[in-house]
């Protein structure tokens, strides 16, 4: 049953969409050069940097899956989800290192290609593109499903509308538009979540919530809950894997002004922590309010609209719309950069000029948006589970990235084997035990392989090679 009338929802949707597209056009009107378009001129400061990192990491998952995990796995589910911030915090020093060693780099693919060679680079591309497309499709599907459940807007229309708006302003303004709109979306999300959190604590009362859970759902408060314990570090490594490998975050490291990357990611991580805690806490209120929950992923909007009525439904609608847009635009921009640089330029058009690349960037964003939209259209329900699946894949890249950035003794063979071994073992754990073990097992196996090779390796990589070759990223042949 929709919690918001369709007319109000459409008015909100149109008003925000006009604002995003207009701002995208305004901020991107001077982005004629490739660096301006792809990396916002590499001049992003701390305020915008922190906001874009935080907003991108607040996805529809943060507002929808955090309450779901708190509902299913209790205290550990809520706290475990907030450990997603560790990815941002730990990436802060990496961002500084990336900017220093690759000041003219474009993508995370550039790093793998220059640091580890062709085989590891292609394994990485397969993992990263699979993950990116999976995330994009899950966001698109979430957009359609959530708008439909919150307001009654049909799935296809909601999905098409959000996709079209995000593709339009990302195409118009490139990374500048993405970062600018992210800043506004961050403010909306933070205010909205603060209001929601306050109301939830105030309405049923903490004591009432605790009593009801302890009486009828005691496992949720049990700090020894096995699945919750397993989930805790699994989610941490899933988040670390997502951030450490993905071009969404590497492109921001390249785009941030020298010396701002560390603090931007640090602040983003700190600001992000309370968001899943606040949204996750919504789930606990459901027991005190005695609201029947039709599906675990519906618990967040249900409680919000129950407590705040129509205004709660509007609030959650705006938060969801903002968090969806802030992640979709970043993903579109960063994935299209990866396809442009690592697939189009490095595989098919090695002699492409920067002007040709600039034009092709727009085409790729459009094609990527259309492809994701087409995959989302049939509304295959189990595609939403795709992200859990990718935990095993992305966690396998953590150690190749970290050791590759800091140690000269790891080579391409070690990182290729680590990624392959991590993926296989993580997926085995996914099916044998549960989704809450896949990333941890993958990261563990990948670490053992990397560390083993480094102990016996005589490789001494010269980090200057990253700098020299990446200077010509968009004009030389491979």
């Amino acid at each position, binding site marked *: *049953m929709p919690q918001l009338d369709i007319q109000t929802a459409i008015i909100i949707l149109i008003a925000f969409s006009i604002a995003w597209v207009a701002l995208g056009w305004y901020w991107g009107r001077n982005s004629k050069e490739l660096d301006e378009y792809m990396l916002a001129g590499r001049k992003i400061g701390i305020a915008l940097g922190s906001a874009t990192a935080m907003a991108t990491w607040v996805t529809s998952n943060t507002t929808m899956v955090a309450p779901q995990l708190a*509902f*299913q*796995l*209790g205290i550990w589910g809520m706290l475990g989800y907030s450990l997603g911030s*560790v990815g941002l915090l*730990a990436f802060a*020093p*990496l961002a*500084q*290192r990336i900017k*220093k*060693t690759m000041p003219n780099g474009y993508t995370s693919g550039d790093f793998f290609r220059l640091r580890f060679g062709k085989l590891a680079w292609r394994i990485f591309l397969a993992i990263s593109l699979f993950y990116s497309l999976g995330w994009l499709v899950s966001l698109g599907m979430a957009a359609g499903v959530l708008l439909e459940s919150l307001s009654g807007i049909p799935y296809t229309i909601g999905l098409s509308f959000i996709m079209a708006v995000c593709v339009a302003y990302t195409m118009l303004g490139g990374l500048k538009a993405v970062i600018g709109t992210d800043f506004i979306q961050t403010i909306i999300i933070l205010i909205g979540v603060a209001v929601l959190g306050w109301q939830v604590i105030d309405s049923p009362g903490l004591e009432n919530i605790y009593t009801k*859970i302890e009486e*009828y*759902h*005691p*496992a*949720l408060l*049990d700090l*020894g*809950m*096995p*699945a919750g*314990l*397993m989930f*805790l*570090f*699994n989610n*941490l*490594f899933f988040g*670390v894997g997502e951030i450490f490998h993905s071009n969404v975050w590497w492109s921001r490291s390249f785009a941030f002004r020298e010396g701002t990357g560390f603090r931007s990611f640090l602040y983003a991580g700190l600001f992000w922590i309370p968001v899943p805690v606040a949204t996750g806490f919504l789930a606990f209120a459901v027991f005190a309010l*005695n609201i*029947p*929950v*039709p*599906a*675990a992923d519906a*618990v967040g909007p249900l409680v919000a609209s129950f407590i705040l009525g129509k205004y709660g439904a509007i609030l959650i609608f705006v938060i969801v719309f903002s968090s969806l847009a802030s992640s979709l635009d970043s993903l579109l921009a960063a994935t299209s950069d990866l396809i442009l640089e690592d697939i189009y330029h490095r595989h098919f058009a090695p002699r492409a000029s920067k002007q040709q690349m600039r034009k092709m960037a727009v085409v790729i964003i459009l094609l990527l948006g259309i492809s994701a939209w087409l995959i989302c259209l049939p509304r295959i329900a189990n595609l939403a589970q795709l992200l859990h699946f990718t935990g095993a894949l992305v966690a396998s890249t*953590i150690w190749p990235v*970290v*050791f590759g*950035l*800091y*140690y*000269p003794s790891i080579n391409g063979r070690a990182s290729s084997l680590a990624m392959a071994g991590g993926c296989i073992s993580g997926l085995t754990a996914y099916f044998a*035990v*549960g989704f809450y*073990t896949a990333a*941890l097992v993958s*990261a*563990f196996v990948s*670490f053992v392989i990397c560390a083993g090779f480094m102990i016996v390796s005589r490789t001494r990589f010269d*980090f200057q090679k990253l700098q020299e070759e990446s200077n010509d990223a968009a004009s030389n042949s491979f």
Partner: protein
Amino acid sequence: MTHSVYRLFWFFIFLSSLIGPAHSIELRADTTLSKEGYFTLQWQGEISTENSVLQIAENADFNNARTLFNLSKYPHNSIAQSGYLNGNYFFRIAETRNGNTSSLSNTVKIEVQLHSFSLALLMFTAGFILFCILLWVILFGGPGNFKNQEQRG
């Protein structure tokens, strides 16, 4: 011939006693064995009476049944449950009228058998150690580590 028909008749009676009484609502769960303490109940069939409730009990005869929710105005046909400890749980949709309860659905049994604590502790410890190594590598690890970067300015 009459004897065969007679036997067939009793055979069907026997079969129907095995199947149990027919219910207007078919209740089912997404799992019969939950390792995490959560599961979802779904049902098919119209809930038409105002006194329809979802009941939970710790045995199949519902002696100590407790009402979870009144379903009469509930617009969905599923309910997610979580936070259950090890044990067997029985669910049914029932109608309460004048203090009498009659079942509207079949009974669904769900066994909650949480993962072993030792496995969970092993995963937790492995995760914690791996996380400490990650932090150490980033902050103090190789020649390009964060500490050295800071010192070099």
